[in-house]
C-alpha cells in the first residue's frame, strides 16, 4: 500500500509532463507571435496538430525499414522517461534514484542516437545532412552537459537531481561556477531543442535545417510521436533549469497534498517565465550559419569546463 502511495506522485509526474509538453510548445509559439506583433495560433493548437496527425494515414517511403517505423516510439519513450525523471513539482519521488543527471543526459543521447539513425534510413541526402549535423552538434553539446553535471555534482556532492535541488535550496549563495554552468546549460538547451540561433523550428528552408531534415520523411502518427518527443524535450530542459537554478517551491519527499499543489503551481509559473525568456532570446537574435554553431557550443563546453575546474581547484582550500 505504501508502495502505491509512493508511486502515485511519480505516476502523476509522468502524466503531467505528457500533458504539459504540447501546451508549453503552444505557449512559446503564442508568445513569439505576440512579440512579433502577430496574433499567433491558439494555445492549444499543438494538441490539435497532434490529433490531426494521428488520424492521418502514414506514408512510408518504399525502402523504409523496421527501424524507421519503430524509431519514433523509442525516441519518444526515452525522452519521456528522461523528462519524467527530472523533478518538476516535487523532489525525492519514488523512482528518482533510477537515474541521475548523467543518466538523464545519456537517455536523451539514446533518443538522439535513434533520431540520427532514422534520418538516414530512407537514404535521402536531406536525411543524411540532418543526421550528420545533429551528431556534430551533439558531439559538443553532450560533453558540455556532462561538464555541467560535474560542476553541480562537485558543488552538491551528488549527481542526483533531487539532492542537487535540495542542496541549492539550503545552500543558496551566489557562485561563479553556478553562473557559468547556467550559461552553458542555456546554450545546450537551445542547441538540443533546435531553437534559434542553432536551428529554426519553424523553418523548412532545406539547406539550413537540421532537426526537420531528419524527420522529413515522416508523416501521420509517426510524425506525431516525434513532434511530441520534441515538445517533451523542451519541457525537460526548462524543468531542469528550473529545478537546479530556481529550486524554490519544490515539494520535498513525502509532502502533503497542499505541498504538492504549491509545487505544481510554482512549476507552471516557472515554465511560463522560462518559456517567455526563451522566446525573448529567440526573437532578439538571428540564426547562425551551420559552421558557426560549433563555436557557439564550444563556448558552452569551455564554460562548463571552467566551472568545473574552478570547483576542483577551490575545493582544496
Amino acid at each position: 500500500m505504501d508502495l502505491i502511495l509512493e508511486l502515485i506522485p511519480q505516476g502523476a509526474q509522468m502524466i503531467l509532463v505528457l500533458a504539459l509538453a504540447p501546451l508549453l510548445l503552444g505557449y512559446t509559439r503564442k508568445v513569439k507571435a505576440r512579440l512579433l506583433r502577430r496574433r499567433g495560433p491558439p494555445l492549444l493548437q499543438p494538441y490539435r496538430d497532434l490529433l490531426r496527425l494521428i488520424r492521418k494515414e502514414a506514408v512510408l517511403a518504399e525502402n523504409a525499414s523496421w527501424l524507421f517505423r519503430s524509431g519514433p516510439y523509442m525516441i519518444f519513450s526515452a525522452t519521456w522517461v528522461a523528462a519524467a525523471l527530472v523533478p518538476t513539482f516535487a523532489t525525492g519521488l519514488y523512482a528518482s534514484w533510477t537515474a541521475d543527471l548523467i543518466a538523464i543526459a545519456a537517455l536523451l543521447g539514446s533518443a538522439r542516437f535513434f533520431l540520427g539513425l532514422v534520418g538516414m534510413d530512407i537514404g535521402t541526402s536531406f536525411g543524411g545532412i540532418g543526421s550528420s549535423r545533429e551528431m556534430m552538434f551533439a558531439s559538443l553539446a553532450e560533453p558540455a552537459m556532462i561538464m555541467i553535471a560535474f560542476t553541480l555534482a562537485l558543488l552538491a556532492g551528488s549527481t542526483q537531481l533531487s539532492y542537487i535541488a535540495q542542496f541549492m535550496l539550503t545552500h543558496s549563495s551566489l557562485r561563479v561556477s553556478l553562473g557559468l554552468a547556467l550559461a552553458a546549460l542555456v546554450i545546450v538547451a537551445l542547441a538540443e531543442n533546435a531553437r534559434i540561433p542553432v536551428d529554426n523550428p519553424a523553418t523548412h528552408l532545406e539547406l539550413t535545417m537540421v532537426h526537420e531534415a531528419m524527420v522529413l520523411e515522416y508523416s501521420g502518427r509517426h510524425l506525431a510521436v516525434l513532434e511530441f518527443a520534441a515538445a517533451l524535450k523542451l519541457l525537460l530542459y526548462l524543468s531542469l533549469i528550473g529545478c537546479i537554478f530556481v529550486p524554490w517551491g519544490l515539494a520535498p519527499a513525502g509532502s502533503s497534498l497542499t505541498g504538492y499543489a504549491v509545487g505544481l503551481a510554482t512549476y507552471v509559473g516557472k515554465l511560463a517565465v522560462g518559456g517567455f525568456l526563451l522566446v525573448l532570446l529567440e526573437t532578439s537574435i538571428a540564426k547562425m550559419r551551420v559552421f558557426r554553431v560549433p563555436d557557439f557550443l564550444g563556448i558552452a563546453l569551455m564554460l562548463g569546463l571552467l566551472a568545473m575546474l574552478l570547483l576542483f581547484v577551490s575545493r582544496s582550500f
Partner: protein
Amino acid sequence: MTPLAVALWSIPALLCAPMLAATAPRWSAATRRTYGACFALCFIVLVAAFVHLVGARNTAASLHLPIGLPWIGAHFRLDGLSAFFLVVVNLGAAGASLFAIGYGEHEESPGRVLPFYPAFLAGMNLVVLADDAFTFLVSWEFMSLSSWALVVAHHKDPDNRRAGFIYIMMASFGTLALLLAFGLLAGGSGGYSFTEMRGTTAALPGLVLLLVLLGAGSKAGLVPLHVWLPLAHPAAPSHVSALMSGVMTKVAVYGFIRIVFDLNGPPAWWWSVVVIPLAGITCVLGVLSALMQHDLKRLLAYHTVENIGIIFIGLGLALAFSAHKMPAAAALALTAALLHVFNHSLFKSLLFFGAGAVLASTRERDMEHLGGLIHRMPLTAFTFLTGCVAISALPPLNGFVSEWLTFQAILLSPDVPSWGIKLLVPAVGAMLALSAALAAACFVKAFGVTFLGRARTGAAQTAQEADRFSLAAMFGAAALCLLVGILPGVAIDVLAPAVEGLVGARMPSQSTISWLSIVPVAESRSSYNGLLVFVFITMSTLVAIEIIHRFASRAVRRGPAWDCGFPEPSPATQYTADSFAQPIRRVFGEVVFMARERVDMPAPGNAQPARMTVTQRDPVWDAIYSPISGATSVAADKLGYLQFLTIRQYLSLVFVALVVLLFVLMLVMLVWT
C-alpha cells in the same frame, strides 16, 4: 579437477585441435571441427573460471610445472584477477569460435587460419595464467606470433603484409619493454617468479611503470603506440579481428594491471599523472580517427583504441586513489575499468561479428559500397544495432554502466590532495565526455551508412542473412550486453574479489540494494538502475504503441521518398561515410589531422565533373613513426656503404681497431699502474 587444472589442460587440448582438422575429408568439415572443438574447450574453461571467480572469492590456486626456464620452471596461478580475465578471454573466444563455425566456411585460405587460431586462444589463456616472468613473456609473445600469422593469413594483399609487419614489430617492441620491466622487478638476483617479485620492491618502480606502459600499452593500443592496431585488426579474418580487438587488447590490460597493481609495490603519486592524460588523449584521438574511416572494420579497430583509453582512465584514477590511500575510491575506479574491460569485449566482439557477417555476405568492408543491408540482413542489423547502442554508452545497455562508473570515479577525485591530479582530472573528464558523444556520432555513421539507406552496390543488394551459428553468436553477445546493462550490480559483485585483491577494498555490495540499483558510494551521491530504466522505457514504449494503435489511423501507404520534392533514384546521392563525417572533420579534423579539403570546380560550361579531394595526415605517424623509419633507413643506407669497401679498406678497419685497442690498453695501463 580444480579450475586451474581445467584451464591448463585446455592449453594442450587447444594446441591439438588442428589435428582434428587434419583428419577431416574437406576444408568445411575441418573448419567445423576445429571451431567446434575450440568452442567447447573455451566454454569449459569459461565455466571453470567463473566458478573460481564466484566460488573461491579471492583465494589463489597455483601450480608449478618443470618446463620453461630451467631452475625456475613454469608457475601458474589463478586468483581473482586472472579468473576474471580468464572469463573475459574465454567468453570472447567461445563467442568467436561459435561465430566462426559458420563464418569459417567463407574463408578462402582455411589452411592459413585453422592451425593458428587455437594457438592464439591458447596463448591468451596462458598469459592470464602465467605466474612467472618467463612464462608470461613466452605466452605473451606466442600470442602475438600466432595472431601475426592470422593477420597475414590473407597475405596476397600487400596492405595486409605491411600490417602484419608493423604489428609484429610493435608487438616485439612491447615484449622487449616488458622484458626490461621484469628485469628491473626481478633485480640482480633473478627472482623471476611473480611470488618473489611481490615480496621485493623494484629498484626503480617508476621506470617499471613507464616500461609497462610501453609494453602493455603497445599491445593494448595506447596512443601513440596504437598505429599497428587499425592496420592489423581489420586485416585478420573477422572472428580473429573480434578476438584481437575484443580480447587480446584486454589481455594487455591484464598485463598492465598485473604488473603495476600487483607486482610493482605501492604506487607513487605521479604515476597517474602519466597514465591519465595519455588515456584521455587515447580516447579522443581514437574516436576521432574512427570517425574519419570508411572501412567498417578499421573504424571498429580505431574505436577499440578509444575504449582502451576509457579503461586506462579508470586504471589511472585507481592508481591516483591508491597512491593517496583512498582504497574505496580506488576500488570504484578499478571496478569501472574492469567492468569496461568486460563490456568492451562483449560489444566489440559483437560488432566485429556483424562486420564479418557483412563481409562474408557482400565481400565488402568499405562502407561506401554498402547500404540498405537492414532489409537483406535484418537479424544481423538488429544485433549490430544493439552493439552500436552499447558501445555508444547509451542506457540501458552495458556500455553506459561502465562509463557512468568512470564518471563517478572522476567525481571523487577532488578529494585527492595532489595538485597535478586536480588539474588533470577535469580535463580528462571533458575528454571522456567528448569521446562518448563522438562515439555516438561514429556509430550512427557506421550503422547508418552500412545498414540503412539504399544499397550502393550490387553486392549490397544481393546480400544474404548470416548463417545460424554466426547469428547465435551475435544474439548471445547482444543478450549479454543487455543483461549486464540492466543488472550491473551482479557484475560488480562478481568482480569484487578481483578488485579487492589489488587495492585492498571493494565497492559496497550491490546485491542488497533494493530494486537492483547500483550505488557506488552512497545513495545520496549517485545511483543508477539499469533495470528500472529498461522497464520504464519498455513500458512507455508499449503504452505509446498501445495508445497510438487504439486511437490512430492504422493505414499505411508506401510511396516514393519525399525528400522535399526532389527524390533522386540514384543511390549515389545518399550521404556517404565521408560526407557524414564532414562536419566533424571540419570542427576537429583540421586541427588534429590537418585535414584539408580541395574542390576543383570546372569552369561554367565545362562538362567535366567537379572533384573534391580530402587529405588527412596521421599526426602520430608523422611525429614518431616516420622519423624512426626514416632514421633506420638512413642508418641502413649509411652503414650499407661498408658492404662496398675494398679489401684494403677492410684491412684498414682491422688496423684501426688494433691501434685503437692498443692505445686504450696503453692508457689504461698508464693510469692503472
